[in-house]
């Protein structure tokens, strides 16, 4: 029987609850959305409100501090208010992700009484046409803007979250202006690591994502914030984690000296996600089965989680890659793209190469400008 021989300290400090993977939108690039038909095909069911509330209590007892409620669209659940109100009183540093299109008067009253500490709203375009084209909805854009304006009145830290693909990249400037018009201090987080849908998701993001060059141009030309985040980002790889005396070893499997962590990040070490169908996985973007949290308990699931992780051979090409400092890939992204956590991802490698060369060019230009001015 599998057992953990040794392990660095693991503390389940941060959790994500994927209350549902259903959504009232059908965004083409969604990595998680399932519909009723797919849920049926998968032979799985969503958790009940009672189960989510029990899991939240168990998470609190286990020492989880940060909790993100997300989906799909969490407000799509008819029992959203019941789940939200119970959890909001348990003392988590609470975050809520939503597309802001379903904020009913009752939900307004609830969020006014119990605001989350943080709110993330996805903003996919600057017009009804874009929302129609990309998300398959009509009349939603106006509701989204009203929703954002309402959420902005709460004491919560609000941020907008965008993902640029073929159908909305032309809206980028308009989106920035729109957000600045509401409040110029509102941050816009831009996600550009797009790959296949995971865990049975029904969308086809890869068909709609920008090419590597389009992606890089988009970032450099228009998103100052994303660029600042990129410059500060470190490559997610076990080798760059700080050295610890105790390594993670399961059943003394290779390598002989164990791993610094499970995936080279906080996944399964300091954060975890509970999926819509009750499995504990490392993070929401990871395409893995994970561990059942309903069968025994959440803390049992957390304890045994490392046992069911399989570590294939690391990719040799990554060890000697020139563009490591610009690589935004991680095991979850590689798994979604290739089926293996150590697979090579030409699309994302190309993005890293282009960022690297572009920054080199910019540095050289700055160097020349500086010399000229001396």
């Amino acid at each position, binding site marked *: 029987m599998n057992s953990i021989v040794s392990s660095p300290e693991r*503390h389940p*400090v941060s959790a994500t609850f994927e209350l549902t993977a259903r959504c009232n939108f059908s965004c083409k690039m969604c990595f998680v959305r399932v519909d009723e038909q797919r849920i049926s095909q998968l032979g799985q069911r969503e958790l009940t409100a009672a189960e989510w509330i029990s899991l939240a209590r168990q998470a*609190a007892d286990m*020492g*989880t*501090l940060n909790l993100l409620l997300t989906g799909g669209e969490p407000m799509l659940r008819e029992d959203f208010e019941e789940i939200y109100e119970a959890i*909001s*009183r*348990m*003392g*988590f*540093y*609470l975050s809520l992700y939503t597309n802001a299109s379903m904020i009913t008067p009752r939900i307004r009253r609830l969020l006014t*009484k*119990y*605001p989350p*500490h943080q709110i993330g709203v996805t903003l996919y375009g600057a017009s009804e046409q874009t929302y129609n084209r990309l998300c398959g909805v009509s009349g939603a854009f106006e509701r989204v803007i009203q929703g954002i304006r309402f959420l902005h009145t709460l*004491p*919560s*830290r609000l941020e907008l979250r965008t993902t640029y693909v073929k159908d909305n990249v032309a809206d980028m400037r308009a989106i920035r202006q729109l957000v600045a018009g509401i409040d110029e201090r509102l941050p816009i987080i831009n996600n550009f690591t797009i790959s296949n849908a995971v865990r049975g998701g029904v969308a086809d993001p890869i068909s709609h994502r920008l090419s590597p060059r389009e992606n890089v141009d988009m970032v450099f030309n228009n998103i100052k914030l994303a660029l600042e985040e990129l410059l500060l980002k470190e490559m997610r790889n076990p080798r760059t984690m700080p050295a610890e005396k105790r390594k993670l070893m399961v059943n003394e499997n290779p390598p002989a000296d164990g791993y610094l962590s499970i995936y080279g990040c906080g996944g399964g070490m300091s954060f975890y996600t509970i999926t819509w169908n009750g499995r504990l996985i490392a993070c929401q973007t990871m395409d893995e089965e994970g561990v059942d949290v309903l069968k025994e308990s959440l803390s049992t699931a957390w304890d045994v989680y490392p046992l069911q992780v399989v570590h294939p051979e690391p990719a040799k090409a990554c060890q000697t890659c020139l563009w490591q400092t610009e690589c935004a890939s991680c095991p979850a992204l590689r798994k979604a793209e290739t089926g293996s956590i150590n697979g090579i991802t030409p699309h994302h490698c190309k993005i890293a190469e282009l960022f690297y060369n572009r920054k080199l060019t910019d540095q050289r230009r700055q160097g020349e400008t500086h010399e000229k001015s001396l």
Partner: protein
Amino acid sequence: MKIKDGFIYRQVAGQHVVIPVGENIADFNGIVNLNETAAFMWLKLQEGSSQEQLVAALQNEFDVDAQQALQDVAAFVQDLRELKAIADE
């Protein structure tokens, strides 16, 4: 004095923290870190306590003289008032 409703004490990774919930977030949207003595006083105040009782309890539990205890309790209570975490009974 008593800690107001809606300030939740938690133990996370061996540390003492307090999270405001509900309306309290409007006054303070963050996480309070308590050291050992602050956590001790916080838990007493959850039950309700006067400033004098807190001073006595602190002296009892920790190796601290009366003067120090008085100052520490006064400073702590002032911090809590600034957080709007205290209700006077």
